[in-house]
C-alpha cells in the first residue's frame, strides 16, 4: 500500500476537512491506516486484511460490507486486537482519539503499541462490540438482569442499587419493558436477545460501537425496529458505529459512509448517497445488481458470477478480475490503489482505475443471465395442476404443554411450469408446509392431492412413489449433504432409488448429465469431490441435482438461497428458473424475502402465524398490498430504491410505525 499512501491520504484529509465543517473541529475518533492482518497456517498465510484504510468520525455510522470471508470481522476485531494468536497484525496503524483519553494520550491512543491493560480499558470503556451471532452467546442459566449487572460491575465501581438502576435504564433504552429483566434468555425472542446484547454494549457509555452482523438471522420487521433504535440511541448518546453486514441494501438505509471490501481489501468507499445511485467499482455494482428490488420494473438482475479468490494467494493485479464484467488485460498488473473518483463527491474512492461511475455494463455481462422466466407469468391457463394441499393443518406438542398450531388450514395449488412463493417470517409455518407436502411429516388435518387423487405420502408403500414426483431442496447446503460421502455417492443413490421408474441406471454418464444440468462444469472436477471441498453455492447445486435425479414434477424449495452469499443467490435462483422452464417443474419457493419472491415467482402467498393472509399474482401483490401484515413486511424490507433521495432510514421507519400499530391492534 505504500504507493497508495499519497492519493489516499489526500482524499482522507479531504473527507476530514469537509467533515470539520459539519461536526466542528473533531477528526476521526478511530483511524485505521494500511492495516494488514494475516492468519498463520501450515498451508501458507491467509492474508485476510490487506492495507485497509478506514476512518470513523464522531456520531457517524460507517458501514462495512462484502461477501462472506472477505475479512470484515477480521478487520474489526483485529483493529481492537481481539483476534486470537494465529492471527497477526503485520502492518499498518490504528489510532483511537477518544475524548476521555485525550489528556493522557494527546496524540491519540496507539492501539497496536498498547499494553494488555491499556487494551482492556479501551475495549471495556471506549469501544464496545456486539459480536456476530451475539444473541446466542447469552448464558442460558442466568437471568438477563444478572448478566447485564455483571457487565456493569466488571467495569464500573457502583453500589448495588445504582447498578440495578442502570440495568433498568439500559433495558428500557433498547425498548424492552423492565419487567422482562427477570427473564432467562430462552424466554426472550431472538430480537429481544439482540437488544439485550446492544444494551450491554452501551452499558459503559462507549464512544465507538462495533456491530458485527447485528441483525443477521432476524426477520426483516424485527431488524428494522432494532436498526431504528440503534440510530435513535446514536443520535441521543452520540457514539459512532462501525456497522458490519453482508447486506449492502441494509447499509444504504443506516450508514453515512459505505466501505466495500473484497478479498481483504477496500475496493470502494463512498458517502451512502453516492452508492445509492449506483456505485462505481464493478464489485459494488455487482452487489447492488444482486438485490431483487421491490419497486420499478421487474428487471433482469446482473449478479456476480464465480467465487471469491483464495486469500493465501499473493498474485499481483486486481483480485476481482476473474469475476469482473469490465475486466481487461491491464487488470492483471494493475496496482490496487484507492483513488478519488473523478467527478464524484469528496470521500468517494474506488480501487478500479478503469471504470467510471455510470459506465454501462458490457453487453456480454448481461447475456450471462438470460431472463429465464422472470416476470413472464404464464398463468394457470393451460398448465395442468399437479399437487394441491387442501386445508392443511399441523399441531405440535399436546399433553401438558398444550398444543401449538404451526399451520392452521392452508390451501395451495402447484401447477406445472409455475412458481408459487410462500413468504413469511421465521416461525410463521412456512417450512412446516414444505415438510407436510414433502411427506416428511404427518399432517394433523387436511388433504394432499396428486393429479387430483388424494394421497397419503407418509404412508409406507406410497412414500417412494410419491418421492419420484415431489422432491425437496433444503435450506442449508452445509447440512444437507452427508460430509462423509462424495458427490458421486449422493447422486448415484438418488439415481438408483428411482432407476426403475426413470429408466436411468446410476452410471457415470448419468451422474455427469445431472452435474451438467446444474452447471457444475467441468464435471470431472466435481464428481468425486467431498462436500467440504465445495462452496455453498456449489453444494446447493449438488442438492438440486440430487432432487432432479428422480425426475420429479414438483420441486419444493425451502429457502434455497438464504444461507448463501448475496452474490451467489441470484445464480441459484436463475438456475432453478431455468430448470422449471426446461422440465416444466411446479415449484414452491419458500422465502422470507418478499423482494426475491417478486423477482422469481408468479404467485405470492403471504403467511403469518400459520395462516395465509394474502395471496395474488406476484407483481400486483407487491405493488398493492391490501393486508396490513403484507404492507408491514414490504415496508420493512430493505429496498435501495425507496430511499434514493431521502435521509437514511427515517422515511421507512415512520411508515413502519403507523402500520405496526394497526397490526398490533388486530
Amino acid at each position, binding site marked *: 500500500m505504500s504507493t497508495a499512501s499519497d492519493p489516499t491520504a489526500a482524499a482522507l484529509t479531504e473527507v476530514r476537512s469537509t467533515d470539520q465543517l459539519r461536526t466542528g473541529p473533531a477528526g476521526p475518533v478511530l483511524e485505521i491506516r494500511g492495516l494488514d*492482518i494475516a492468519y498463520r497456517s501450515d498451508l501458507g498465510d491467509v492474508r485476510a486484511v490487506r492495507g485497509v484504510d478506514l476512518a470513523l468520525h464522531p456520531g457517524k455510522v460507517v458501514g462495512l460490507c462484502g461477501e462472506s470471508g472477505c475479512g470484515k470481522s477480521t478487520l474489526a476485531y483485529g483493529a481492537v*486486537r481481539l483476534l486470537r*494468536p494465529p492471527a*497477526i497484525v503485520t502492518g499498518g496503524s490504528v489510532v483511537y482519539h477518544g475524548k476521555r483519553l485525550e489528556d493522557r494520550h494527546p496524540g491519540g491512543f496507539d492501539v*497496536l503499541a498498547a499494553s494488555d491493560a491499556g487494551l482492556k480499558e479501551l475495549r471495556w470503556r471506549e469501544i464496545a462490540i456486539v459480536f456476530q451471532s451475539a444473541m446466542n452467546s447469552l448464558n442460558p442459566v442466568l437471568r438477563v438482569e444478572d448478566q447485564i449487572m455483571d457487565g456493569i460491575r466488571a467495569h464500573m465501581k457502583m453500589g448495588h442499587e445504582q447498578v440495578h438502576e442502570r440495568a433498568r435504564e439500559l433495558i428500557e433504552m433498547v425498548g424492552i419493558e423492565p419487567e422482562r429483566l427477570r427473564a432467562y434468555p430462552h424466554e426472550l425472542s431472538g430480537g429481544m436477545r439482540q437488544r439485550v446484547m446492544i444494551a450491554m454494549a452501551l452499558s459503559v457509555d462507549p464512544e465507538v460501537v462495533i456491530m458485527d452482523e447485528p441483525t443477521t438471522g432476524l426477520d426483516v420487521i424485527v431488524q428494522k425496529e432494532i436498526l431504528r433504535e440503534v440510530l435513535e440511541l446514536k443520535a441521543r448518546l452520540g457514539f459512532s458505529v462501525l456497522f458490519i453486514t453482508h447486506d449492502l441494501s441494509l447499509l444504504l438505509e443506516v450508514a453515512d459512509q459505505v466501505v466495500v471490501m473484497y478479498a481483504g481489501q477496500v475496493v470502494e468507499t463512498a458517502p451512502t448517497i453516492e452508492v445509492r445511485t449506483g456505485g462505481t467499482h464493478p464489485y459494488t455494482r455487482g452487489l447492488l445488481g444482486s438485490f431483487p428490488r421491490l419497486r420499478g420494473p421487474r428487471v433482469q438482475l446482473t449478479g456476480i458470477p464465480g467465487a471469491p479468490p483464495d486469500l493465501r494467494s499473493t498474485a499481483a493485479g486486481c483480485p476481482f478480475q476473474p469475476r469482473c464484467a469490465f475486466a481487461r488485460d491491464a487488470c492483471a498488473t494493475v496496482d490496487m490503489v484507492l483513488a478519488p473518483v473523478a467527478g464524484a463527491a469528496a470521500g468517494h474512492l474506488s480501487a478500479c482505475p478503469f471504470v467510471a461511475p455510470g459506465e454501462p455494463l458490457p453487453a456480454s455481462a448481461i447475456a450471462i443471465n438470460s431472463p429465464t422466466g422472470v416476470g413472464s407469468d404464464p398463468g394457470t391457463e393451460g398448465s395442468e395442476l399437479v399437487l394441491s394441499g387442501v386445508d392443511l393443518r399441523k399441531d405440535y406438542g399436546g399433553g401438558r404443554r398444550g398444543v401449538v398450531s404451526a399451520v392452521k388450514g392452508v390451501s395451495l395449488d402447484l401447477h406445472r411450469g409455475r412458481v408459487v412463493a410462500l413468504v413469511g417470517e421465521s416461525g410463521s409455518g412456512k417450512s412446516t408446509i414444505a415438510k407436510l407436502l414433502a411427506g416428511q411429516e404427518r399432517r394433523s388435518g387436511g388433504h394432499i392431492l396428486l393429479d387430483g387423487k388424494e394421497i397419503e405420502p407418509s404412508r409406507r408403500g406410497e412414500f417412494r412413489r410419491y*418421492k419420484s414426483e415431489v422432491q425437496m431442496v433444503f435450506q442449508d447446503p452445509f447440512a444437507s449433504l452427508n460430509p462423509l460421502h462424495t458427490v458421486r455417492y449422493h447422486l448415484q*443413490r*438418488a439415481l438408483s432409488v428411482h432407476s426403475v421408474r426413470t429408466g436411468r441406471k446410476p452410471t457415470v454418464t448419468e451422474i455427469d448429465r445431472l452435474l451438467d444440468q446444474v452447471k457444475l462444469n467441468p464435471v470431472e472436477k466435481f464428481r468425486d469431490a467431498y462436500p467440504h471441498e465445495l462452496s455453498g453455492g456449489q453444494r446447493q447445486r449438488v442438492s438440486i441435482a440430487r*432432487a432432479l435425479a*428422480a425426475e420429479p414434477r414438483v420441486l419444493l424449495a425451502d429457502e434455497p438461497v438464504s444461507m448463501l452469499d448475496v452474490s451467489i443467490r441470484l445464480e441459484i435462483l436463475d438456475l432453478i428458473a431455468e430448470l422449471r422452464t426446461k422440465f416444466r417443474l411446479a415449484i414452491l419457493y419458500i422465502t422470507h424475502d418478499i423482494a426475491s419472491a417478486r423477482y422469481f415467482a408468479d404467485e405470492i402467498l403471504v403467511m403469518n402465524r400459520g395462516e395465509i393472509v394474502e395471496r395474488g399474482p406476484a407483481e400486483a401483490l407487491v405493488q398493492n398490498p391490501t393486508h396490513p401484515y403484507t404492507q408491514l413486511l414490504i415496508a420493512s424490507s430493505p429496498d435501495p430504491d425507496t430511499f434514493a433521495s431521502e435521509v437514511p432510514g427515517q422515511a421507512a421507519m415512520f411508515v413502519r410505525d403507523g402500520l405496526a400499530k394497526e397490526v398490533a391492534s388486530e
Partner: protein
Amino acid sequence: MSTATLTPSPTRAATIGGWPLAFLRGVLATWRRLPLKAKIGITILVLFILVAIFGPALAPYNPNTTTTQSVPEAPNIHHLFGTDSSGGDILSQMLTGTRSTVIVGLVTGVVATILSVLVGIAAGYLGGYADEGLSLFSNIVLVLPVLPLLIVILAYEPHSGSTVTIALLSALGWPWGARVIRAQTMSLRNRDFVLAAREVGEPAWRIIVFELMPNQIGLIAASFVGTVLYAILTSVALAFLGLTNLSVWSLGVILYWAQSGSAVELGAWWWYVFPGMAVAFLGMSLVLINFGLDELSNPRLRASRSMRKLGRRNWRPADPTPVILDYAELNR
C-alpha cells in the same frame, strides 16, 4: 481405443495391485494426525496385545511350577519380578496371564459395543414406542449395581471360566454406550442430510448403516474403549475376589494369589506391585486413547490448550492479537 480395451487401464491396475500400500499409507496418515495422547495410549495397548499373543511362548518358566521353598523370593537375576511363596515366577505368570485379561477386555468390548450400537441407533432413529421401551430397558440395566450383582451370580458358580465373565460383563456393560449413541442418533436424525436421504427415498436400513453410523464412528470407538476399560477393571476385581477359574492365569488371578498368600504381610511387594502396575498401565493406555479420540473429534480442545510460537515468542490463546510488523522476524 483398441489398446485401451486390451490392456487394463493403468489407474485400475494401480488400485488393485497397490491397495495394501494405499491402505498402509492411509493408516500412516491417520497416525500422524492423532494427538500425542492417543499415540502413547495406542503404543502401550499394542505392547499389551503383543504380550497377549506371544507372552506365553516367551515366559521363561512354567508359571505353575512350584518348588519346595515356602517364602517368596525378591526380584533377582533369575526371577526378574521375583517369585510367589511357592516359587512360581511372577514374570512368567504375568506373561501368561495378560492374554486372558486382554481377551476378556476386548471381546466384552466388541460384544457390548455391538449391543449398544444396535439398541442406541434403533431407539434413536425409530423413536416413539420403540424408543421408550428400549430406553426403559437400558435405564433398568444401567442402574443395576454391577459388581454386587456379578458377585452374587458368580458365587453360585465360583470357578467358571472367562466365557461366563465375558457374557455377564457384556450383558451389563452396553447401556452406557447405548444412551450416548441414542442421543447422538436423535440429533443426527433431524439433520438435513438424513432428511435429504429420506427425501431421495432411501430405505431406513440404508440410512442407518450408510448415513448415521459412519457419522458416529468416533462415538462408537470411544464407547468401545470405555467398555474395554470397564471390562478389564471389573474382571480383575472379580478374579481378585476369587470369582473366576483360578487355574487359568490372568492379572487378576495373580493378585488373588498374592492376597491369599498374604503378600502384604510377608513384605513381598513384587507379588502385587508388578501385576497391579500392569493393570494400571493397561487402564491408562485406554484412558489416553479416549482422551485422544476426544481431542480428535473436537479440534478446539487441541487448539485452545496449546501455545503458539509466532515470531520470537510464544503466545497464549488469551493474548491480544500479536503485532509483528517485521515480516522477516515472523518467518524466522
